[in-house]
């Protein structure tokens, strides 16, 4: 248990996409495109910039940590008391791109993580499922 309480958890989703990094970069960084697959946002790929993602169920507060065009994008992700960092990595792969998303930094012993779980996280995910169900 003591090991689990100090461990930093992360989520990695990786996919090879038949599109060039430049095109994927646009989808990751242009607000009108981000809105189509993630959430409404006032994002701009400028290091240090604070922005948020907004949806019916609430929002996510973020700050840009890194933005290397066509290769790396990283921002903090704070939602419902859970603080983490989301990092996108684009690597050319054949005619396409390997896109990797890593969200890291959850620590199960964090007070805010517990509060987030208790008061908001279930609602966040419940609402998220409703939102997703409405999207074809």
């Amino acid at each position, binding site marked *: 248990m003591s090991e689990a*309480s100090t461990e930093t958890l992360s*989520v990695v989703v990786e996919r090879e996409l038949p599109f060039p990094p430049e095109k994927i970069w646009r*989808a990751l960084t242009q607000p009108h495109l981000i809105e189509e*697959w993630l959430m409404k946002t006032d994002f701009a790929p400028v290091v240090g910039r604070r922005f948020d993602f907004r949806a019916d169920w609430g929002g996510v507060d973020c700050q840009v940590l890194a933005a290397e065009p066509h290769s790396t994008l990283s921002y903090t992700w704070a939602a419902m008391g859970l603080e983490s960092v989301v990092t996108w990595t684009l690597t050319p792969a054949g005619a396409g791109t390997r896109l990797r998303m890593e969200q890291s930094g959850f620590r199960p*012993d964090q007070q805010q*993580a*517990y509060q987030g779980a208790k008061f908001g996280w279930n609602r966040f*995910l419940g609402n998220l499922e409703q939102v997703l169900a409405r999207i074809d």
Partner: protein
Amino acid sequence: MPTSHDVLFRTLADPTRRAIFERLCREGEQTVGALTAGAGISQPAVSKHLAALKQAGLVRDRPEGRQTHYSAQLGALAPLIDWTSRMAGFWENRFDDLEDLLKRMDQ
């Protein structure tokens, strides 16, 4: 054999016990006396709940002089809070939508 989930659920199923645990989460380390003051039940009853919470790994006790201080062990909740699999599902769905968008986008 009861799993860690069973023990946690059973321990936190009691509303009074859960209230004590939530208070420790919210306010940090407390003595039995301090916990009793806000609990509306007797000190022996609070002690009994604390023993059950300790058994489940949800609280830790720290003797200091004549007092025992109790603190919440949030790591014990980890089996219930499977962030990683929930977030992985979220991002898999987002990747699907991203891929759909990329197909629709101009070069």
